[in-house]
C-alpha cells in the first residue's frame, strides 16, 4: 500500500531556505566589496518580482508582459510618498503594495477573461499605458526627467544607507516572499492555480473559482513587484520611467523562464543568472576580445540564453535540484522531474 505522507508530493522542508539564508547572510563575512553587494541587491529586487511572477506564470499558467508596471507603481508610490510628502518610507511601501494590488484587481477583472496570448498582449498594452502615464504625469512623477531625492529607508532610527545594510534588508524580504509563496504553492491555493493551467473547464467543475484565483495570483504578484519597486526607489534614490518600460517586463519574464518556473526557487536562480551573466560577460568579453565593445556582450548574452533554454527547457532550477539530490542521502527516492510539456501528444488535442 502506498504511504500516505505529504512529503511524497511536496518537499516542504525548511532546510533549503534556512541553509540558503545562512549562507547568503554569512557572505559579508568573507566579502566586503560594495560592488558585490550591489549585484546581490539587484538580484534581490528582480528575484522578488520574479517570485510573484513565477506563481502567476509557472503555476497559474498566465503570461504577464506587464510586470514592470507594478514595479514602477511601487517605485513611484514610494518616491511620491517620501519624496514629495515627506512621509515614512514604510507608508510608501505599503501604499504602493495596496495601490499595486488594487490596480491589478481593476486590470485583472476584464483581462482574465482573455486566454493565453491575448492576456500577454493585454498586460503588455496596459504596461505601455502606465509607462506613458509615468512620462506624462509630469507634476507627480517628474516625467521623463525622472524623480530625484528619494530618501533612504530607516527602521526605528536605523538607516539603511549603505550597501551592506541594504543587502540584508532586501534579502530578508526576498526570503520571506519565497517562503510565503512556496507555502502557497504547496497548498490548496497552489493546486487551484495549477489546475487552471492544467484544464480550465475541469478546474471550474471541481469548484475552483478561476477568476478569483487568477486575480489573487495576479494581485499577489503585483504586490511583490510593487514591494520590489519601492525597495529599488529607496536604494537608487533616483528613478525615471525608462526603468519600467515594456523591455523591463520582458526581461522579468525572461528571468522567470530561465530560472525555471516550476519552482519558486527558480525566481532567485533566474534573477541571479540574468544579473551575473551580464556582469561576467562584461568581465570576460574584454579579456578575450580586447577591442570589443558592448555589442559582443549582448550577442553572447542572447546566444547563451537560447542555448540554455534549448538544453534546459524547464529552466536552470531543475538542474540545481538534480545536483542537490545527489548530495542528499537517498532517504527516499526522489520523484522523477515533472515532464511539463515534454510530451504534448499525450495530453492530446488542442495545442494553443
Amino acid at each position, binding site marked *: 500500500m502506498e504511504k500516505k505522507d505529504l512529503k511524497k508530493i511536496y518537499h516542504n522542508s525548511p532546510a533549503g531556505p534556512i541553509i540558503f539564508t545562512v549562507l547568503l547572510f554569512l557572505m559579508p563575512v568573507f566579502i*566586503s*566589496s*560594495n*560592488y558585490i553587494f*550591489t*549585484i546581490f541587491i*539587484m538580484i534581490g529586487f528582480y528575484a522578488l518580482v520574479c517570485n510573484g511572477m513565477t506563481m502567476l506564470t509557472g503555476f497559474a499558467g498566465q503570461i504577464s508582459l506587464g510586470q514592470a508596471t507594478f514595479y514602477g507603481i511601487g517605485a513611484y508610490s514610494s518616491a511620491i510618498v517620501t519624496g514629495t510628502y515627506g512621509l515614512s518610507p514604510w507608508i510608501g511601501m505599503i501604499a504602493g503594495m495596496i495601490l499595486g494590488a488594487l490596480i491589478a484587481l481593476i486590470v485583472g477583472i476584464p483581462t482574465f477573461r482573455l486566454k493565453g496570448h491575448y492576456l500577454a498582449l493585454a498586460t503588455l498594452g496596459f504596461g505601455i499605458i502606465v509607462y506613458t502615464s509615468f*512620462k506624462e504625469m*509630469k507634476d507627480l512623477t517628474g*516625467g*521623463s*526627467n*525622472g524623480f*530625484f*531625492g528619494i530618501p533612504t529607508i530607516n527602521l526605528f532610527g536605523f538607516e539603511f*544607507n*549603505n*550597501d*551592506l545594510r541594504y543587502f540584508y534588508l532586501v534579502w530578508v524580504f526576498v526570503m520571506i516572499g519565497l517562503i510565503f509563496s512556496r507555502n502557497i504553492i504547496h497548498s490548496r491555493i497552489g493546486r487551484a492555480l495549477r489546475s487552471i493551467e492544467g484544464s480550465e473547464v475541469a478546474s471550474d467543475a471541481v469548484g475552483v473559482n478561476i477568476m478569483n484565483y487568477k486575480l489573487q495570483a495576479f494581485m499577489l504578484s503585483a504586490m511583490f513587484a510593487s514591494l520590489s519597486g519601492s525597495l529599488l526607489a529607496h536604494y*537608487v*534614490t*533616483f528613478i*525615471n520611467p*525608462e*526603468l519600467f518600460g515594456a523591455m523591463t517586463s520582458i526581461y522579468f519574464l525572461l528571468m522567470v523562464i530561465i530560472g525555471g518556473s516550476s519552482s519558486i526557487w527558480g525566481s532567485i536562480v533566474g534573477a541571479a543568472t540574468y544579473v551575473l551573466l*551580464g*556582469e561576467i560577460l*562584461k568581465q570576460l568579453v574584454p579579456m578575450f576580445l580586447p577591442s570589443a*565593445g*558592448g*555589442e559582443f*556582450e*549582448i550577442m553572447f548574452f542572447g546566444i547563451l540564453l537560447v542555448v540554455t533554454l534549448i538544453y534546459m527547457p524547464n529552466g536552470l532550477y531543475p538542474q540545481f535540484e538534480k545536483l542537490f539530490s545527489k548530495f542528499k542521502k537517498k532517504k527516499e527516492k526522489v520523484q522523477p522531474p515533472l515532464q511539463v510539456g515534454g510530451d504534448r501528444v499525450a495530453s492530446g488535442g488542442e495545442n494553443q
Partner: protein
Amino acid sequence: NSDSKSASGSNESDSDTIKIAGIFSSSGGAAPLGEPGLETLKMIVKKQNEEGGINGKKIELVTYDDKSDQNEAVLAMKKAITQDKAVAIIGGTISGNALAMLPLSEQNKVPFISTASSRQIHQKEDGTAREWVFKMPQDDSHAVEKLLQYLKEKGHSKVAWLNVANSFGTGAHAEFKKSARKYGIEAVIEDEFEATVKDAKPVLTRVKKAKPQALIVWGTVQETSVVIKNIRELAIDLPVLGSHGIGSQQIFNLAGDSANGVIFPGGRLIVADQLSDTDPQKEILLNYKEEYEKEFKKPVSLFGAHPWDGFYILVKALEEKGTDRAAIRDYLENNTSEFVGLAGVFSLSPKNHNGLTPDSLVMIKIENGKWVLEE
C-alpha cells in the same frame, strides 16, 4: 561605515598607475552617442600614456557599457568606485543614466565628470552645484537660449515647438517654456513625437494649422530626420530649427536633401575650419578632428568631444594634486578657468560645475551635405 573604507582605497599613492573609469552607452538606444565618446577617451588616454602619462605614471582606463540602461549604469558606477577604485569617473552618456549614477559619486566622494547634458546633473534643485559632479556638455538651456536669441534676431515671434518624448526633449522643452517669454517668443503649438517615430505627418498637420512662423524640432538625429523629411513632404515652407543633437554626419544620410536649410545651435567642432583664426578653440578642434578621423576612419561627432574636455581638465588636476580624490575635486572646482576645450571655454567655480555659456554654441546651417557657420 563603508564609505570611508572604499574612499581610502584611492589614496594608495604607491601604485604606479592612475585608474580612471569611463562609463558609456556603447549599446542600447544611446549607442550612437556613447560610442564616439568611448572611442575618444580610449584614444586620448593612449596618447597621454605614450607621451609619458601623468607625472610618470601611466593611466589605466577601465571602461563599461551601461547598455543605455539605468540599472546597468548604477552597477557599473559601483564597480568602478568600489572594485576598480577609480580616481575619477568620466561618462554617463544619457542624462537618465548620469542622474542615476551621481548619488554614488556624492556618497563615495569620487569626482564624476558627466558627459550627459541635463542641467540637473551638476545643479541641485536649489541651483547650487553638486559637490562631486562636473558636467562637460552645454546645458540644454544654453542651446535653447542660443536658439531663442537667433529667432529673436530673425524676428520670428510665433513658433511651433516639437520635441522628442524623452528626457532630452522634455528637458529642453522645460527650458524653452522658461525662457521663451524673455525673448518675446511664443509657441503657438507645443507637442511631442516618439523617438521611434515613423511618420510624423499626423502631428505636422496640426502644426500646419497653427500657422507658426518657424518650426523647432528638438530631437536627436534619427527622429529629427524623419520629422524633417515629413515637413518637406507636406511642403510646409517655414524655417526649421533643430537641436544641438543633430550635429552628426548621419543627418546628411538620413534626411538627405530635406535637411537643407535646417539651422541649429551646435558646438564649434563641426565647423572648425570655418571659424575665424582668432577663435581660441580653432586649433585644438582641428587637431582633435584630424586625430579622431585618422584613428577611426569616420567623421567626428560632438558627443565624442565631451570626454575629451573632461579628460584634459582632469589631467591638469591629476598633474597638480596626484590621486587624492578630494584634492582633485577642489582643484577642478577652483582652478579651472578659461580652459579651452572642444565644447567651449570652461570656467568652473564652486557655484557652477559646468562653466559654459550660450556663446559656446554657434548657429549652424545645413547646406547640401555641409555644415555652414551661420552669422
